[in-house]
C-alpha cells in the first residue's frame, strides 16, 4: 500500500491511558517522507509513549496509526521492517562485539545472508566504527554506543528512523558528530527522521518541522520559524517555555538523570 499523500506517518486521534492517567490525549499529525521531524515536549509530555505506539511496542486505546500506509495493529511485522529505532537508553548487548551486535540485528530483520557483511561494513564505516568492530561494546564510550545504535538501526535499510533523545548523555563533540551523521543520512539516503530531543538549539538546527506536545496534546506545530512567530519569541527555547510553562514537572527520572545524580552523590555534592 502507498503512503497517503507522501506521508510516511499518519496519526489520527491517538489516545493512550494508564489507569486514570492520560499519557496521550488525542494526538493527530503526519510526517512527510524524507523530512526531519522533531517531536518536542517536557518530560512526561507523552513523547516516548507516542514513539512506543508508533513502533508497535504499546497498543493505543483508540485512534489510528499508519506507517508507510500500513496499520501497526494489523500488520505489526511488516510495519517493523519499515522503521529503525534508537531508544532513549542503550539497547545494545554489551557482552557482544560491535560486529556481533550488527550481525544479530541483520539476522533478526531477515537481511539476506549474502548481503549482511557488505551492509554491516557500509554502516560501520558510515559511523566511523569499522576499526572497532571486533571490540566488545562494554568497552565503548557513550558516543560510540550511540553511533553503533544508529548504524545498527540503518542496517536493514529502513525508510524511517525514530530517534528518542539521541544526544542525551553525550558530550558536545559527540553531539556534533552525531548530528553530522544524521544530516548526511537524511540528505544522502533520503531517510525520514522522527526525532525527540530536549535540546531546542539542536531541534532548531536540524528540523524541517516541529510539533510541541504537552500533557499528551499538541501545543504547537510548524517549522521552527512558524512556532517562533506563533509565540512571538526569538528562539525556539523561548517558544518552548512560552508553550509549556516554566514550572518544574513531577518528572520520572530517566537513566541519564539517575547517572547524573549518582555522580553528584559520588562527588559529595548532593545527598
Amino acid at each position, binding site marked *: 500500500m502507498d503512503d497517503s499523500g507522501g506521508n510516511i506517518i499518519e496519526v489520527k486521534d491517538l489516545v493512550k491511558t494508564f489507569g486514570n492517567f492520560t499519557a496521550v490525549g488525542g494526538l493527530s499529525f503526519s510526517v512527510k517522507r524524507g523530512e526531519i521531524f522533531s517531536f518536542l515536549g517536557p518530560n512526561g509530555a507523552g513523547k516516548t509513549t507516542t514513539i512506543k505506539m508508533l513502533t508497535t*511496542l504499546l497498543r493505543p486505546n483508540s485512534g489510528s496509526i499508519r506507517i508507510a500506509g500500513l496499520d501497526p495493529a494489523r500488520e505489526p511485522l*511488516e510495519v517493523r*521492517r519499515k522503521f529503525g529505532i534508537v531508544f532513549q537508553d542503550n539497547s*545494545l548487548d*554489551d557482552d557482544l562485539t560491535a560486529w556481533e551486535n550488527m550481525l544479530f540485528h541483520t539476522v*533478526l530483520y*531477515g537481511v539476506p545472508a549474502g548481503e549482511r557483511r557488505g551492509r554491516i561494513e557500509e554502516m560501520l564505516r558510515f559511523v566511523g566504527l569499522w576499526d572497532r568492530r571486533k571490540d566488545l561494546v562494554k568497552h565503548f564510550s557513550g558516543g560510540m554506543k550511540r553511533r553503533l545504535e544508529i548504524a545498527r538501526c540503518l542496517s536493514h535499510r529502513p525508510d524511517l528512523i525514530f530517534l528518542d533523545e539521541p544526544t542525551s548523555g553525550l558530550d558536545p563533540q559527540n553531539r556534533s558528530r552525531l548530528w553530522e551523521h544524521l544530516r548526511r543520512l537524511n540528505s544522502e539516503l533520503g531517510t525520514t527522521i522522527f526525532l525527540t530531543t530536549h535540546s531546542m538549539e539542536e531541534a532548531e538546527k536540524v528540523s524541517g518541522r516541529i510539533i510541541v506536545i504537552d500533557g499528551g496534546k499538541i501545543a504547537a506545530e510548524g517549522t521552527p520559524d512558524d512556532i517562533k512567530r506563533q509565540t512571538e519569541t526569538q528562539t525556539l527555547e523561548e517558544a518552548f517555555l512560552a508553550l509549556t510553562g516554566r514550572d518544574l514537572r513531577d518528572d520520572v527520572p530517566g537513566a541519564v538523570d539517575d547517572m547524573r545524580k549518582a555522580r553528584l552523590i559520588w562527588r559529595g555534592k548532593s545527598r
Partner: protein
Amino acid sequence: MSRSVRAASWGAVWALWLRQIKRYLRSRSRLVGSLGQPVLFLVALGFGFGPVFEKAGGGNYIQFLTPGIVLMGVLFTAIFSGIEIIWDRQFGFLKETLVAPAPRLFIMLGRTLGGATIAVIQGFLVLLVSFAAGFHLESWARLPAAALFMALTAVAFTALGTAIASVLEDMQGFQLIMNFLVMPIFFFSGSIFPLQSLPRFLTDVAAANPLTYGVDGLRLALSGGSYAGMGLDAAVLAGVAAVLVVAGAQLFSRIQA
C-alpha cells in the same frame, strides 16, 4: 507469513540461540559459579550421607545421588536463563528484540533453546565432575537417553523461567522464586532421597513435580533403577515441556515495553 518474515522468524531463533551461547562461553565466572552449588551438594551429601544410605540398604549413594545433582545443575541454569529476560529488560536489550519483524513465539523459542543448550552443557559438566567423586556409568550406550532427559528438563524449565520473567518487572521477586518454587521442585523430585519411603502427601507432591520424571529417567539412563519407567518419564516430561513452552510464549507475547 511472507517469505521475508519467515526468514526473519527462523533467523531470530538462530540469532537468539547463538547470543545465549556466546554470552555463556565468554562468562567464565558464570561457568564456574554455576558449577559450585551442584558440586557442593555432591561432595557434602554424597560423602556425608553415603555411609548411612549404604547401611540402610540403599546401595552406593554417589550412584543414586549423581543423576539428581546433574539435574540440579540443569534446573538452576535453565530457570536462570529464562529469568535473564528481566536483565535484558532492565538493560534495554529486550526492546531490540521486541521491535524486530519476527513473531514473539520465535523469539521466545530462540531464547528457550539457547538457555536449554547451556543448561544441558552445565549438566554434562556436573556429570564430568561426578566421575571424580567416584560415580561410574552403568552403560555408555544409555548416554543419548541421558542427554534426552537433560534436554527435556532444560527446555521445560527454561520455558518456566521465561514465563515467570515475562510477568516480573524486576529482580525483587527473585528470592521468592528461589525459596518457594525452585528449591521445593528440587527437593521433592527424588534427587537426594528415594521417594518410596516418603509419607503419602509428599509422594503426591513428587508425582505432580515434572522434575521427578526427569530425575527418574536420568537415573535409569545413568545408574540403572527407575520408579516410573523411561517411557512414562519421557512422555510426561515432553508433555510438560510443550505446555510450558506454549504458556511461556503466551506470556512473552504480552510483554509491552
